[in-house]
């Protein structure tokens, strides 16, 4: 296990900047999740760490030692790919044994066999070992791929959206398993995903990437409760956060074209015009609410119901626990939790730190 540090990494492909001055550290034994949309540079980051791609500027350090000129084979990382994760011409056993049979490792076949079985047990694929990779289901394949990473005991696990090609049920099951594996082994893991649920549930810390720039690094809670930009606020949380252009006047915050108005906090530094955000769970539907609106849509999910409320020409989302007993078109009273408002700069989208 090791600490992995990226220091001011920049990587360009032609005229496209894939990574722009990215710096972060994955601590020893930490599960670090890189969250971002397609094309944000997540995979490029992994490839730079694995040594499959050479950065244009900056340094990659393993345990404080620069590895910029070290070959992928010598970096001792394990990579779980999104697609094409298994060698198609080999059996499951040979897939697991392949990393151990690498020329530098000099392991005896008996030792290899023992370690393969150990890894297979941990990802529960012992019964598949003699099978060809051809007839495996998607879930089995990714389990084998995880096993192939585990078998090596590498310095760091690099996982490139290993769950994104699985159907929802399987993804959930494997997510839990991955969580268990990582907690057991305390392995340094860098996991890449576009799925905020995976990020929130798996990560010790999350790094949010946007167009090659690392926007925010923090624990899932920090990311959720104190999003650094409107982008992060929108990326994390289902249903999505309510965001409005808002104005401050006469000690009140008003959202134009709606009846939403809140007393402005007593902070200094809130500009006259800004972006206001509040999460759906902070919109509480209650008979003594100070705001009112009309229900336009109900999305009962079982665990909760997403209530779409219209206020003037704006609409907002609220969540209610369980299946809510409302009817579409009816008036409803609600209130917004004042302590959990988010303020962002209207132009830059950055979080306004108020004191």
């Amino acid at each position, binding site marked *: 296990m090791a600490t992995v540090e990226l220091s001011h990494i920049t990587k360009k492909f032609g005229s496209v900047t894939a990574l722009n001055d990215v710096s972060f550290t994955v601590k020893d034994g930490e599960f670090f999740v890189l969250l971002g949309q397609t094309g944000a540079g997540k995979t490029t980051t992994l490839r730079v760490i694995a*040594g499959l791609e050479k950065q244009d500027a900056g340094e990659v350090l393993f345990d404080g030692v620069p590895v910029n000129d070290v070959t992928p084979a010598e970096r001792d990382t394990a990579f779980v790919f999104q697609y094409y994760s298994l*060698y198609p*011409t080999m059996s499951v056993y040979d897939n697991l044994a392949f990393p151990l049979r690498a020329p530098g490792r000099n392991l005896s076949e008996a030792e290899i066999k023992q370690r393969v079985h150990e890894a297979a047990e941990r990802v529960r694929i012992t019964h598949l070992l003699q099978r060809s990779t051809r007839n495996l289901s998607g879930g089995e394949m990714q389990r084998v791929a995880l096993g192939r990473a585990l078998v090596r005991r590498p310095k760091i696990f690099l996982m490139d959206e290993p769950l994104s090609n699985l159907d929802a049920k399987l993804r959930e099951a494997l997510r839990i398993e991955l969580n268990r594996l990582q907690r057991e082994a305390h392995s340094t893991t860098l996991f890449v995903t576009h799925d905020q649920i995976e990020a929130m549930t798996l990560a010790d810390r999350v790094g949010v990437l946007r167009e090659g720039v690392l926007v925010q690094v923090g624990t899932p809670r920090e990311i959720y409760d104190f999003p650094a930009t409107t982008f992060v606020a929108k990326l994390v949380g289902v249903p999505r956060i309510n965001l409005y252009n808002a104005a401050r006047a006469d000690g009140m915050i008003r959202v134009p074209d709606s009846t939403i108005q809140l007393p402005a906090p007593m902070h200094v530094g809130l500009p006259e015009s800004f972006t206001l955000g509040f999460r759906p769970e902070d919109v509480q539907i209650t008979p003594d609410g100070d705001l009112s609106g009309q229900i336009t849509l109900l999305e009962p999910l079982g665990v909760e119901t997403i209530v779409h409320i219209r206020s003037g020409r704006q609409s907002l989302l609220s969540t209610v626990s369980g299946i809510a007993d409302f009817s579409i078109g009816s008036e409803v009273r609600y209130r917004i939790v004042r302590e959990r408002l988010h303020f962002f700069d209207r132009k830059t989208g950055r979080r306004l730190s108020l004191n």
Partner: protein
Amino acid sequence: MAVSTTSAPITYATRVDKVGARYQFTRALRIAVVVLYATISLIPVFWMVTAAFKSRPDVVAIPPKVFFTPTIEGFISLLTKRVLLPPGMMEEYKQRTDLNFAERIMAERGQRITGPSQYGQRLLNSVIVASASTVLSVLLGVLAAYAFSRFNVPGKGDLLFFILSTRMLPPVVVTIPIFLMYQQLRLYDTHLGLILLYTVFNLSFAVWLLKGFIDEIPREYEEAALVDGYSRLQAFRKVVLPQAITGIAATFVFCLIFAWNEYAFALMLTSERARTAPPSIPTVLGTGGIEWSAIAAGTLGFLVPVIIVTFALRDYLLRGVTFGALRK
């Protein structure tokens, strides 16, 4: 309410769209077309095979004989040198008791076998030249194709076009200059000369064909091997090659057929030592006229090796390009 009605079990395997009269008709039509095509293309082969086993009068008979008494005269004349004996000496020759099977047959035609022909040697030359140039083309081709497919080769597009452009004029156009060059370089009538030439011609084809196949293999596999502790060359050998085997087999067969069948250069650039089978078969001239059955026999013998190779590799040729653990 009791359920009393029972019906015959439904055969779910019967596809409704495959029992209609219209489907049956188009199916029959398709089969008919394929059979017709196969028949037409097999007629020359059939002609050749029968001609190889015909006696001299049968092979030139008009109308052509479909039913005849097979003989191996053609094969014997293909594989031997003979002299024509005058009738007087013939009687005496026939009386001899030490004649073997082949000599007896030829004696019936008034010929005496004096030794083996060069056919065997020429066929061997063909095997040497074709297999060496094919192995060389595929070997160099797969390495070049891999480089073009995976690395940022400077001037990649131009190089690939340049490689392809070697196929843009009929090879025969350059036979004379190559003939002169080969004489200067002492490559005339050598195995090496033909091997080099065929390799050059096949290489462009091999590079392009194999590049297509290797492009189809996702890079992730090699990259996984690189991360797993293998060098680039080891990853190529252990991960890429096994997956490219279909493409390699297909390229191998195409290159082999080209080198095996090549006629013009073989005719121009060889005479005795390195002459291959294609230019030599049509020149099997018998004593007094063209030995059609010997030519047919020679062609048959010439076809056999390439048919064997193609059949041996047909599983690879037919198998899909991508197979195995792919998910999209």
